[in-house]
C-alpha cells in the first residue's frame, strides 16, 4: 500500500465521521491513499501537527493562527492550501431585539452582551476585538455573558451562538453576536422570529477554516490532495452529499489574507502568545 496522506480533523459533531469517511472513499476512488485521525479539540490537533503526527489538518481559523505561530517559533512554516468557498469573507453581526432601544454600540453601556464559546473566533474573539477597537471593553463598559459550549472545538458546533440567541429572545441578555449566516439560519429554525431582531453592528470580513499543512508534510502528496479536492464538482451526485455536509459548493485554493482580524484579536484578548502558547486562563478543552 502506498503511504497515505494523514489528515487531522476535530470531532465537533457525529457527522464528522461521515464526512471524512466519505472523503476517504472519494480519494481512494481516485487512487489516492488518505487516512484521518480525529481529535477531540483543536489544541491537541495543532500540537500533533507540530509533532509531525499528521501531514495536514482541517483547521479552524484559530487553529490556523496557533499552528502558524507555533511553526514560526520553531523556525518552520505551515501553509493554508485549500478552503471552502463559504470560508471566505465572513462577518459577525451584533443583534438586538427589534424593540430594543439600542441602536448603536454606545447603547451597550451597562448592558449584557452575549458571546459564544471562549475559543469561538466568530462569536467571541473577533467580536470582543471589534468592540475593543470601538472603545468598548468587556467588564468595563458592558457585561460579557459567555455561552461556553464544548470548549476546544473553536465554536464549530455553533451551540454557543444558538444558546445566546435563545437567551436574547428570552430577554436574559441585551445583545448577542453570531456569524452573519447564523443570523439567517437561526431565523429559518424559528429561534429568531422573522423581523424580531435587528443588526446594529458588523465586524470586518474574515476567513474561516482551511487545510493547514504540517511543517514537514510530503509536498507531492499535498499537491495531489489539493488537486483532487479542487476537482470535487458540486454537480457530481457522488460528492455533492459530502460537500453539502461540509457546507460548501466549491473548494478554493487556500489564502491567509483573511486572518488578520483574528490574529489581532488573539493578541488583544491574550488567547495565545506569539509562540502559540495558550494564555487564556479559563480555557478548558
Amino acid at each position, binding site marked *: 500500500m502506498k503511504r497515505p496522506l494523514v489528515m487531522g480533523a476535530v470531532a465537533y459533531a457525529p457527522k464528522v465521521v461521515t464526512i471524512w469517511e466519505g472523503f476517504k472513499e472519494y480519494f481512494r476512488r481516485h487512487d489516492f491513499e488518505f487516512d484521518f485521525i480525529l481529535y477531540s479539540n483543536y489544541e491537541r490537533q495543532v500540537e500533533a501537527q507540530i509533532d509531525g503526527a499528521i501531514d495536514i489538518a482541517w483547521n479552524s481559523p484559530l487553529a490556523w493562527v496557533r499552528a502558524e505561530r507555533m511553526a514560526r517559533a520553531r523556525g518552520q512554516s505551515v501553509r493554508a492550501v485549500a478552503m471552502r468557498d463559504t470560508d471566505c*469573507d465572513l462577518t459577525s*453581526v451584533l443583534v438586538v431585539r427589534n424593540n430594543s432601544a439600542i441602536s448603536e454600540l454606545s447603547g451597550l453601556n451597562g448592558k449584557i452582551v452575549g458571546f459564544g464559546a471562549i475559543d469561538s473566533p466568530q462569536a467571541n474573539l473577533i467580536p470582543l476585538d471589534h468592540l475593543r477597537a470601538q472603545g468598548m471593553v468587556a467588564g468595563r463598559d458592558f457585561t460579557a455573558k459567555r455561552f461556553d459550549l464544548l470548549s476546544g472545538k473553536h465554536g464549530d458546533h455553533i451551540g454557543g451562538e444558538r444558546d445566546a440567541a435563545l437567551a436574547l429572545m428570552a430577554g436574559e441578555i441585551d445583545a448577542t453576536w453570531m456569524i452573519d449566516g447564523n443570523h439567517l439560519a437561526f431565523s429559518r429554525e424559528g429561534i429568531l422570529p422573522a423581523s424580531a431582531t435587528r*443588526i*446594529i453592528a458588523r465586524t470586518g470580513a474574515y476567513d474561516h477554516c482551511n487545510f493547514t499543512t504540517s511543517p514537514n508534510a510530503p509536498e507531492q502528496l499535498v499537491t495531489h490532495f489539493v488537486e483532487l479536492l479542487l476537482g470535487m464538482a*458540486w*454537480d457530481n451526485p*457522488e460528492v455533492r452529499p459530502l460537500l453539502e455536509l461540509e457546507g460548501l459548493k466549491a473548494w478554493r485554493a487556500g489564502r491567509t489574507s483573511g486572518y488578520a482580524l483574528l490574529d489581532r484579536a488573539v493578541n488583544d484578548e491574550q488567547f495565545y502568545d506569539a509562540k502559540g502558547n495558550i494564555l487564556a486562563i479559563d480555557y478548558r478543552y
Partner: protein
Amino acid sequence: MTSNFTTQKEISLPSIIDIENLGLDAGAHLLIKHGLCGVSVGGEILVSGSAPGWEAQLAAWCRAQGHPLTFTDGKAHIIRSDIHAGRWRGATQTGHADLLQTGAVHEHALPCYGLAARGATVEAGAPEFAFRLNQKHEVWTDSAADLYAQAVAAQWNPELAIDWNAPFELADEVEDAVAQVMTYMIENENAALVVPARFLGQMHPHFREVQAVLAIQVADEARHIDVFTRRLRLHGREPALSTAGGQASLKTLLDEPDFSVAGFLLSVLGEGTFVSLLNFLHEHGPDPVTRQICRLAARDEARHVAFGMAHLLRRLEHEPEFRSRLAQAVETRNDTLSATAGLNEEVFDALILLAAGEFTPAAIATGYARVQTLMTDMAEGRLARLLRLGFEGKTAQRLAALHTRNFM
C-alpha cells in the same frame, strides 16, 4: 406581492430589486431569487434595501448560494452563478402525473424514483428504494383511477348507513348461526385486507392509481371487519368457530407472491364468490342489520372484483401465456388444499339456518334449497369470470370446479 418591490428589466441595465425594509431573516431572499431568475447565468442584478444590517444578511445568503457579490454606491451587485443548477444535472424525469400524457407511466419504475410524485424531477444521487413491484405490466390497470374515484364516492359510514337499532328478535339458534357466519366472514375479510396491504407496501408509488385502489380496498375490508364484528356482538355473542381447513385455504392466498396470481385467486375467484354470498345474505338474512351490512359490503366487494378483472384482462392481453400460470395456480391451490375439509360444516349449516330464518322443518327445507341455489350461483359466477378472462370453455369449467370449497 409585486407592489412591494420594483423590478426594472431592460436590455442593457441590470434589474434592480428593492427589498425595502424587508430583511433576509423575514423572506427577502425570495424577491432576490425571483430577480436572479430573470437574468441568465453570469448576468447581474442590483439590490437595494433599508433593513438594518441587510448587507450582512445578503452577503451570508450569496455566500451560501454561490453568487458573487459586491457593493457599490449602497447597492449590492449580484452575479448569477450556475453552481446551484448543478444539483439538477443528471436528474431523472419520472413520467407525468397526467395519465393522458404520452409516457406518463413508465414500464419500469426505477428504484431512484423513490417516493417522488410521478412526474417529479428527481435529483441524481437520491436513495434507491427496493420496491419489488416495479414493472408496469405486473400491476397496471387502465381503469384504476376510475375505480378509485368510484370507491371514494361509494364510501359509507357504518354509523349512519346501518340502522343498528332496528328492532328484531331471532331464535337463539338463528342468532348463533349469524355469529358463526360473521366469524367466518371476518376471517375471510382478514385475508382480503392483508393480501392487498402486503402488496401495497411492495408497490412502487410510481403506479399511484393502483396504489390508491389497493389502499382503499384495505380500508373497505377494515370497515367490513368492523361491521361484521359489531353485528356479531349486537346481541352479546362472542365469535364462534374457526376451522383449520378454512384458515389453510386463506393461507394459500397470503402465500402467493405474484400480484396478478394473488389478485386472480383472491379477487376474481374468492371475492367474486363472496359477492354471491353477500347478495345471498342481503336477500335471505334473518334480520335487517345483517341484510343492510351485506348489501353495502357486496357493493364494495364487487368493485374489488372489477379491479381484479380489469388488471388481469390487461395483463392477459399483453401476455396471453400468463393464462396458463393462472390455471396452474388454481390447480396447485387445489392440490394444497386437497387434504383439508374445505368449508366448515358449521358455516354451511349456519347458512341454511340463516336462510331458513326459524328452526322448523319447513323453514329449514327452504333454507337448504336457497343454499343450494347459492352454490350454483357461485359456480356460475366463477365460470362466467373465467370465460371472460379468455379461458376456453372446458378449462374454465374445470378450474371453476377446482375452486376452494371454503368459497375464498
